[in-house]
């Protein structure tokens, strides 16, 4: 059975010159969908991606990446939404392409954020008048 998992890779300064994504695709048979990446020599870098494949292949791929001293985080999300700052105005709604930000209840019109639907396009950061959305990077 294939599953999709979202991974956040953090590179230490000037680490690994190996083409990680190529290895994940070729050696572990994973399908890769990159949301955001910043890989610059001599700087901390990151790569946020979805990997699709069997649980075993994903686990092996993650082991491989960790072996390169690259930090792999599956729990954290690159974009966060601060419910205390959100006023539930709804200005973000037409700008969120995946409806990760959406109205949870049509009667009350309360806005909610489902991080698992977020593709980190960052449109919400620019469009929230109250600064409720922020990016880890």
């Amino acid at each position, binding site marked *: 059975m294939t599953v999709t998992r979202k991974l956040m890779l953090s590179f230490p300064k000037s680490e690994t010159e190996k083409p990680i994504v190529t290895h994940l695709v070729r050696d572990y048979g994973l399908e890769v969908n990159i949301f955001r990446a910043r890989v610059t020599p001599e700087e901390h870098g990151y790569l946020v991606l979805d990997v699709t494949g069997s649980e075993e292949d994903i686990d092996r791929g993650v082991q491989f990446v960790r072996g390169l001293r690259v930090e792999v985080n599956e729990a954290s999300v690159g974009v966060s939404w601060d419910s205390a700052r959100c*006023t*539930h*105005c*709804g*200005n*973000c*709604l*037409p*700008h969120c392409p995946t409806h990760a930000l959406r*109205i949870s209840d*049509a009667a*009350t*019109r*309360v*806005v909610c954020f489902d991080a698992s639907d977020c593709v980190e396009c960052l449109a919400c950061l*620019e*469009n929230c*008048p*109250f*600064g409720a959305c922020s990016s880890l990077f």
Partner: protein
Amino acid sequence: MKSYEEINAKIESKKAVVLTAEEIIGYVEKKGLEAAAREVDVVTTATFGPMCSSGCFLNFGHSRPRIRMTQAWIDDVEAYCGIAAVDVYLGATQLRRNDPANLSYPGEFRFGGGHVIERLVRGEKLELHAQSYGTDEYPLRELRTTFDIGDLNQAIMVNPRNCYQNYNVATNCSDRALHTYLGLLKPNMQNLTYCSAGQLSPLLNDPLYQTIGVGTGVWLAGAHGHVYAEGTQHAPTCERGANDVPTEGAGTLALTADMKQMTGKFVRGVSLVGYGVSLALGVGIPIPILSEAILRRTTVRDRDILAPVIDYSSDYPNRTGRVLARISYEQLKRGEARVQGKTVEVGSLSSYPAALEIAHLLADEIRRGQFLLSRPLAPLPRTQSMKPLQIRKKK
């Protein structure tokens, strides 16, 4: 028929029947207008959204030696000093000193007057920098200090224009993105932005200003304030639909209240990329149910309120008056609306959840006997319209 005195007597004895402008719709449907008008004393209305015409008068008290401030900045945002020695007026849309604005388009406008006002209400420490030319009795020429709202003698919010009765729905028919005070408008009419609480909004529940007038007590961000005048651009002579509900901007209110009594949650700095800064405010206004006619108007529903869709790429800046369509708040709140045969995504700058919370907070205060109603000292004008500014050539 009830009088203000009868309603206030019931409020004082904690027996007033109070419903929100949302609850009253179903209540009247169930009980009928006549019975509901006998039972219900007050309907609470509310709105929460950016209100650019906001600001506050602050009095700092006198330093030793004294200064007559001629220029002042609070957290680097300039406050107007062309009034008495240590009084200033801080406006919501004032940019921070050295903000590049739209030099690098679109500007971010992360901090300005609205944010300073929010910090003030939240009780945070702020920095004051003041300058002066110096006079015999006010010799100090420069001053830097920190303060919070508790250090001020007065911090009085004064909003010349709040609670627009109805408002434009913005869209963009051009082929480039627009950054406006109604948010980012994507090219080729991909999105609409509205800004009204619709069926909860104060002046949509009292469309002919029968109870809301100069002197009416209001709930302004948690403080008890009042309407001090008609709002700027108050234009009651406008197109009106069924039930006398305006189908465009129309009436406005000028509000004031003591900022020391306000709650930070309902006083929020606003940043609009490419446009500037502003302040979002929460307002609640009680409507006394003096008659069946007044009650009937509070049962207005989103589906009965139409707003004009305006093209902000040409018709708005050039003031052509063209309206692309009129659509109801019920349609807008579905998240998608049909305009000129096209399905368009909808966003909003007015928070319905915040407005609903305010309507309930105000209703609770009235039920507990803590908020009495006030009879207007003078009605709002009913006959004027809005004059444009003529650009005249010098002879």
